[in-house]
Every structure is written in C-alpha cells, then in structure tokens.
C-alpha cells in the first residue's frame, strides 16, 4: 500500500526549479532522501506538507488526495524541519500543551510513555535541549498523535555518531510493525547504507533515481583502469576523475563494456552522489 505518493511536483523559483518530482513510499518502510545541499530536498518535503505552495503536482497520503483532505491527513503526519525551535524560552510542557490541541488523535498516555522512553524531562526549556533531544521530542509529539507518516528533514545532522546510531535504531523500531513509514532527508549517506529500504536521489531539482537501496547500488559500478583505457570507455561514463596512475569513474552497470581490463565494484551511495554532482558541474562548465 502507498503511504505517500508524489506525482509531478513542480515549483519554480527565480534560480531554482523543482521539476516533475515523482516518487512513492510504501507503508512500513524507511526511505532516505539524498542530494547535495540546494538540490531540492527541503523544498520537496515542504511542498508535500503544503508549507511551500507547489505550482503543480499531486500529493496523496494513504490513498487520499492531500489537497482535498489536508486537515484530516495532517493528523497522520509527523514532521520535523531543522532550525524550527518552537519557543526557545518555553518549557517542553508548555509547547506540548499548544501542539496537542491541533490533534484529535492526541494520546496523553502515549506522550508520557515516549517521554519516559526517550528520557526527556518535560520541565526543560527548548533551548536547553541537545540536537538529539530535539529530534526525540519531535518524534514524541508525532507518536503521541498517532502519526503514520514521518517526514524528517535532516534529523541526523548535528548529532554525534553515538546519538545518530541510537536514532537510526529507533527508526527501525518504529517501522518494525509495518504500519509506519519514514521519509528522511540527509546528506550523511552512511546513515542510509544500513537502515534505508528505499533511496530517492534528487539532483538539481530533478529525481535521478527512486529505487530500493539494493537496486540503486546494483544499477551503478565504480570502474578503475589505466590511463590508456579511459578513451575507450569515456563515452559510457557518467563522470570520472583522473589521477597520475589511471582513472576512477561511475558507470551504469548496463553500459559496462566487456573485454577490457577494468576493475568494477559496487559503489557507495556517496560515490553515486559525488560522480553525479561532478557530471552536473562538468555540464555547466561545458555551457560556459
């Protein structure tokens, strides 16, 4: 079942264009949303929630059109955007008291259970919370109103490795029963190597790929070879880097030529991003 379906989302700014963004997130899975800074991750997430008004496109949540059922569907969405600190001088309990009024499905027992589980003290002020605690507080609010879809913008940035690991473990716990889905953006791709089921990769406002993580990695290969082999393979490469002893490049697995003395290995998500970004940069240089 589709938890979230985004179809042909478009948003044009003066210097940036979100173009025909489409992807689907199934119920019960974690999707990592990756791309360089400025690629359109936050704009996409905000458009899904209607915080940014898209020029065109359709969003559906749990099979219902978002535009027509906005109030009802927002009850089922938990979200977190970086840099939103509520009222920094207020205690968590005061912020909660405001937030709970927006949700008919608010469950106070669940709220108390989450505070305890995450070791959060309601009497602390928002400004006293660490980055990790802020994420946990956002999750507490979402879980307390029974959210099924979690939209999280860079939840792991600013966390130390231990806190990040703890959070990722929590994500997997959240989807274990198969009823919730998490879409989270990040540029720390190592966060996704393990826990993400799906990866949606956006570059310069366009979706490059939206696949299961395993399929995405299988789609590409890193090739390494000697300098004299570069000429032959160059047209097939997405982009490449030369060094004194040879070259390293990214290629679609389907375009891998036979009969050449090349090393081909599975790329990391980071390598897929780096070589795609290099291609963009090379194209821009070519235009100038």
């Amino acid at each position, binding site marked *: 079942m589709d938890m979230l379906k985004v179809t042909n989302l478009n948003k044009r700014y003066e210097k940036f264009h979100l173009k025909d963004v489409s992807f689907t997130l199934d119920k019960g*899975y974690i999707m990592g949303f990756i791309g360089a800074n400025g690629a359109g991750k936050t704009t996409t997430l905000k458009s899904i929630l209607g915080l940014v008004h898209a020029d065109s496109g359709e969003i559906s949540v749990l099979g219902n059109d978002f535009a027509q059922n906005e109030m009802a569907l927002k009850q089922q969405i938990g979200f977190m955007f970086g840099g939103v600190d509520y009222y920094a001088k207020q205690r968590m309990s005061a912020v909660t008291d405001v937030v709970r009024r927006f949700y008919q499905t608010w469950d106070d027992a669940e709220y108390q259970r989450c505070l305890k589980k995450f070791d959060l003290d309601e009497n602390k002020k928002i400004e006293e919370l660490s980055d990790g605690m802020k994420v946990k507080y956002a999750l507490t609010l979402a879980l307390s109103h029974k959210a099924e879809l979690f939209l999280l913008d860079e939840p792991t940035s600013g966390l130390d490795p231990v806190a990040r690991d703890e959070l990722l473990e929590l994500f997997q716990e959240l*989807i*274990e029963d198969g009823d919730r889905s998490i879409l989270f953006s990040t540029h720390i791709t190592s966060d996704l190597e393990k826990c993400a089921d799906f990866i949606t990769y956006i570059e310069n406002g366009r979706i490059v790929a939206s696949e*299961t*993580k*395993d399929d995405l990695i299988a789609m590409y290969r890193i090739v390494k070879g000697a300098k004299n082999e570069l000429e032959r393979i160059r047209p097939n490469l997405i982009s490449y880097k030369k060094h004194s002893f040879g070259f390293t490049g990214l290629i679609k697995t389907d375009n891998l030529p036979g009969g050449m003395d090349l090393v081909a*290995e*599975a790329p990391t998500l980071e390598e897929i991003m780096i070589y795609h970004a290099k291609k963009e940069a090379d194209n821009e240089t070519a235009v100038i």
Partner: protein
Amino acid sequence: MIDIVISNTSGIPIYQQILDQISAQIIKGEMHPGDSLPAIRTAAKELRISVITVKKAWEELERAGLIYSMVGKGCFVAELSGGDLSEKRNELFGRRMDKDFAYYKELGLSLEEIIKAIEARYR
C-alpha cells in the same frame, strides 16, 4: 536460534551472506524441519539492515526449497529428507566450486596444484 553474522566490508552482498549462512545451518542439520525463522521485520531491526534485504534473503531461501512460508504465520524450515539435504548440499557446493575454480584457472593453476592445495588444507 539461528546465528547470522554480517560483515560490511567483505564485498559479498548482505542478502547473500544471510542466504549462505542459513542454508549452511539447515543443511548441516543445525536447524530442523518445522523450526521457525524470525519475522522479517524483527530480523531487519536486530541485524540493523533494511527490511528489503532480509526479504530478499528469505525469498531466495524459499526459492531454493529450504524454507516455506505460511501467510500470517511466518517462515519455517522445509521438511527435507536426508537425500534432499545432500542434494541441496551438492548444489551449493557445486555453485561455489564453479566460482572458485574459474578464479584458480584465471591464476593459471594446474589441476595437480589445486588438488595439492586442497589436500593440504583439508587435513
């Protein structure tokens, strides 16, 4: 309970590692017919890998006839006779041998050299 140990640096896809390890445990009789496998989502959480990866391993095990699934109940080790098990064992062994031998040939080893090396290691 089954043992699964995953290496992130071995270069072998994770689903393959799971597949190999569970296959071996079934074939060696460490897991018995009717034993239940952990739920896919629980295994994913415990192993800290994606649900899809575990699903793929379970599907491959089912396709190999080593386990069967019952809707709503989960997956179980298949009822395999001693004959079935040795057949599966030979199949897995053969597949791995093919791969390894291709590499030995690439290295230019003669049959005698290979046999000698195997004998030395088997002792």
